[in-house]
């Protein structure tokens, strides 16, 4: 059970290994990794800057994680979210949930990323190849995805 908000990249393999090490109760681990895509809605991106609210961001992520652990019998869980300037192909976020059974692992992992997207204070500033910078607007589909878990 851990939450990390950091500028540095992370190593999914190392995180997965640490989550499952020495816990022989785990039958399934689901991991989601979000990456910066080159193509935004209508244009090619050269970079993206992620801003966050130090303090509140960690607090909200911890709450999302605690909520997942109340809803599903998880052995382990992890949320890592980066901030700062990222380029296409860079990792942004990792969420993981491990449980005795795969149902719980899948559902909790999906819940973590859906809630994170609507509850955790992060904002994306996209830069295109012309140097134009635009703040990403919240997507209704993200709200709908999070609403499924109400």
């Amino acid at each position: 059970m851990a939450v990390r908000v950091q500028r540095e990249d992370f190593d999914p393999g190392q995180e997965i290994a640490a989550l499952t090490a020495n816990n022989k109760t785990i039958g399934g681990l689901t991991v989601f990794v979000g990456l910066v895509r080159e193509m935004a809605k209508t244009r090619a991106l050269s970079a993206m800057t992620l801003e966050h609210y130090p303090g509140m961001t960690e607090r909200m992520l911890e709450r999302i994680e605690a909520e997942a652990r109340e809803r599903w019998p998880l052995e382990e869980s992890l949320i890592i979210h980066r901030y700062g300037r990222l380029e296409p192909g860079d990792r942004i976020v990792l969420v993981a949930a491990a449980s005795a059974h795969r149902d719980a692992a899948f559902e909790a992992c999906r819940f973590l990323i859906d809630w994170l997207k609507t509850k955790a204070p992060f904002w994306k500033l996209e830069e295109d190849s012309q140097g134009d910078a635009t703040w990403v607007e919240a997507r209704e589909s993200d709200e709908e995805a999070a609403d499924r878990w109400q």
Partner: protein
Amino acid sequence: MRLLYFAWLKQKVGHAEEEVTLPEAVTNVEQLLAWLAQRGDNYAAALSDPKSVRVAVNQEYARPADPVQNGDEVALFPPVTGG
């Protein structure tokens, strides 16, 4: 009261944070936003569309009727887009 601004709200207001002293008449989030909006064109522009402004009081999401007071940390920001 400590005020924090994020994302395009920070850009429109022109700074990331400031200390303000609330008039006595300002006791909730809705009143705070109305009071801020009349402090200058930058604030008016930043707060012109209340639907796109989210508020956190002491790092908790807050609604228009939620109370605020001097000593609080209040953050204003657009809907979140992480992940």
